[in-house]
């Protein structure tokens, strides 16, 4: 027995040496596939070869994280090690623990199973047999009507099950998700840790229906699925990589090494001829990663849409007659007395439509998922369901019209713009603007929402040619505009948040002073003509500080109108009236603007602006480039 194993391992050792010599002559560690299996991404403007994986035990050589060559040789060596006589409880042979790199090397070096001991990995094979996926989609969870924070989105992979009637069992598929593992009690360091990589990001595989419940029903976010062109072998590689990743972690950074970036790295590992990770800049915004994937030739084969509960409600409402609309209103205002309603002129099909719309409304309001019971509408929901079942009408299939165009059609998240302009008194200037993310209401809302804007680090520098001066005109550390459109029976609040710096904040001497400020306001928005037209008014509280004027506080009224003239042309008018008080005096401020945008292509827009600030009028023409 002892002799046998010595003989076998002696033989393996020489064969391993042969393999290492072969790998060395081919310089296998320089191939893209090997680096991708080790999760070494392409970094924008960087040649640094460093794996994303943070856990040391993932690497078989001491410097494996930075050295693909050492890692490859150490892997080949460890693959021939024999199983210890008394293995520890969680022992797994390197061939079984790292099957992605093992099978890749087996293929590349044509490892001979007569000269090399292939270990049995029953756990792995059960896992792989269980998964046996036939397709992969990249899924993007879209924004919600009054949640600008969700504009950034989230991405994960849908793993299509091997099934004959795939359309019916879509929600029985699985998903692969990468996320930060945040403890239930987050603590004060939560934001710091998120930024500094204090949390472990891990992969998880779970049933798709869980994510559908979470995004579609709980958070009311639409899901967009981008079916990817992957061969069966590439999908198998993906499964093996997922297995390898299951036992390890990546330090999670919200801005760059986040869910979306790691998804790109995962796709590259499955299909190394993809170039995805190198196309993100410093930070990775999920909607950008969707555009990176869709711009890869022949990679996305199909796009499908899975409506959120709010979208389902809107679709159900859209088919109702005026009469049926009134019934929905009555049903919902009359908490639990369905039986007392007089459904005059409403046959069982009409009733079914009314009930279907009401049910989606209740599910939206109650964030109903799983076996949670509604709180306000508990009785009503039960009665509606029973009445609905008794009428035995089969629901008409939802029209599923998306409320917005798919996210890949949206402009990229970074903005660079150049405006040339002149004041009415003849002073010529140019404004240079840089904003890393994301979207404002003047921009083309294709792929975004009509009345949602999120901008951070929005910086405008002005070059004043008359005085040969460049100065900071505006800096919005963070600005959020939320103007959700009207939904029947649901009142969304419009709101605006803005904090930053501005040059010139009122009439008189304040016109040539800068100040830091914070504004927060609420109001309402009114949409018309199929959301092509919008009026809004927001009342804001404004606090600020200026070196000369000191701390001040005051109200601001923001009025605005937006009209979409055609699919490539939009006009926005805004008027802002403010008063700033401090202990000594008060300053008035007024700013009006009219902005005409023309959208040339996805990432190019031109703008003609007319502004009047504190009585000084200027006109400018500009070009916006998104990147």
């Amino acid at each position, binding site marked *: 027995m002892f002799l046998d194993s010595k003989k076998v391992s002696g033989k393996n050792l020489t064969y391993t040496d042969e393999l290492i010599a072969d790998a060395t002559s081919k310089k296998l560690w320089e191939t893209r596939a090997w680096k991708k299996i080790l999760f070494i991404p392409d970094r924008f403007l960087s040649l640094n070869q460093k794996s994303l994986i943070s856990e040391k035990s993932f690497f078989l050589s001491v410097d494996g994280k930075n050295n693909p060559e050492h890692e490859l040789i150490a892997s080949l060596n460890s693959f021939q090690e024999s199983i210890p006589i008394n293995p520890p409880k969680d022992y797994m042979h390197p061939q079984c623990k790292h099957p992605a790199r093992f099978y890749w090397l087996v293929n590349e070096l044509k490892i001979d199973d007569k000269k090399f001991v292939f270990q049995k990995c029953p756990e*792995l094979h059960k896992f792989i047999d*269980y998964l046996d996926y036939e397709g992969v989609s990249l899924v993007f969870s879209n924004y919600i009507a009054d949640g600008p924070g969700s504009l950034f989105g989230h991405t994960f992979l849908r793993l299509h099950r091997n099934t004959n009637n795939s359309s019916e*069992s879509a929600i029985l598929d699985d998903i692969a998700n990468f996320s930060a593992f945040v403890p239930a009690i987050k603590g004060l360091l939560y934001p710091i840790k998120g930024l500094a990589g204090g949390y472990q990001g891990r992969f998880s595989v779970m049933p798709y229906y869980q994510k559908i419940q979470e995004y579609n029903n709980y958070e009311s976010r639409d899901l967009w699925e981008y079916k990817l062109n992957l061969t069966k072998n590439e999908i198998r590689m993906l499964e093996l990589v997922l297995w390898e990743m299951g036992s390890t972690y990546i330090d999670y950074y919200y801005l760059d090494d986040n869910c979306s970036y790691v998804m790109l790295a995962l796709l590259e590992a499955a299909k190394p001829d993809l170039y995805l990770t190198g196309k993100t800049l410093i930070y990775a915004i999920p909607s950008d990663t969707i555009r990176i994937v869709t711009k890869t030739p022949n990679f996305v084969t199909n796009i499908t849409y899975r409506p959120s509960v709010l979208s389902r409600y809107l679709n159900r409402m859209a088919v109702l007659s005026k009469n049926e609309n009134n019934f929905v209103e009555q049903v919902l205002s009359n908490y639990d007395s369905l039986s007392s309603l007089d459904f005059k002129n409403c046959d069982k099909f009409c009733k079914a439509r009314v009930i279907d719309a009401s049910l989606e409304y209740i599910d939206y309001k109650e964030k109903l998922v799983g076996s949670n019971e509604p709180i306000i509408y508990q009785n009503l929901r039960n009665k509606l369901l029973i009445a609905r079942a008794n009428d035995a009408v089969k629901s008409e299939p939802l029209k599923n019209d998306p409320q917005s165009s798919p996210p890949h059609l949206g402009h990229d998240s970074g903005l660079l713009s150049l405006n040339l302009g002149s004041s009415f008194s003849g002073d010529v200037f140019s404004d240079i603007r840089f904003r890393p993310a994301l979207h404002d209401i003047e921009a083309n809302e294709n792929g975004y929402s009509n009345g949602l804007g999120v901008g951070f680090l929005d910086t405008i520098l002005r070059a004043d040619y008359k005085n040969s001066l460049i100065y900071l005109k505006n800096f919005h550390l963070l600005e959020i505009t939320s103007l959700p459109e009207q939904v029947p029976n649901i009142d969304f609040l419009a709101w605006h948040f803005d904090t930053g710096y501005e040059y010139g904040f009122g009439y008189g001497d304040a016109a040539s002073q800068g100040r830091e400020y914070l504004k927060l306001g609420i109001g309402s928005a009114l949409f018309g003509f199929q959301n092509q037209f919008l009026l809004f008014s927001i009342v804001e509280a404004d606090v600020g500080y200026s070196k000369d004027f000191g701390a001040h506080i005051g109200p601001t009224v923001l009025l605005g109108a937006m009209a979409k003239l055609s699919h490539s042309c939009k006009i926005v008018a805004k008027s802002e009236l403010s008063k700033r008080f401090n202990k000594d005096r008060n300053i008035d401020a007024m700013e009006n603007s009219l902005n005409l945008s023309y959208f040339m292509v996805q990432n190019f827009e031109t703008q003609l602006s007319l502004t009047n600030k504190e009585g000084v009028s200027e006109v400018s023409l500009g070009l916006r480039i998104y990147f």
Partner: protein
Amino acid sequence: MKLKKLIQNSLIGFVFMSTFYSNSWAENPFAKKGDYKDMDQWGMGGCGLASLFIKEKDMLPQIAASFVNGISGSTQSSAITTGSSNCVASRNDLAAKEQEVFITVNLSSLSKEAAQGSGDHISALAEVFGCPNEQFAKLSQTKYQQIYSQNEPTVVLKNYLKEVKSDQNLSKICLRII
């Protein structure tokens, strides 16, 4: 390196991280009501989705607290490395536990679609039971009151099994009615 990253990231994103009420890139606790009553039975052996993905007893409070979203992180790592060790390879063998988990997670959608007589979730449940979709949806609608008598996943499962078994046609053709 970490310091550089900290500075870089903090500069770019501190404000927007702390301002947004939720950060969708992280796994946030979800469904705080947490009344998924049978959740703590899920991980206990058996076969099926639940035992594949949810395994360790220690992780269960976390799962109960964060429901859908929380099934990640270290739960995952142990589940994925140990694989489906107590699971027979074929998906056809997933039975009772999978049915229970499926009903628990999807109950509100199921009750709605059952009353409506069609829908994605009811089709999926038909598949979980191994029943033909059309007939199963019809049964769900006609026997709605008997099946969804309580908002309790185990009771709903029991009622389904009873109704399918007593249906002359379905009792013969549904593949996974135990």
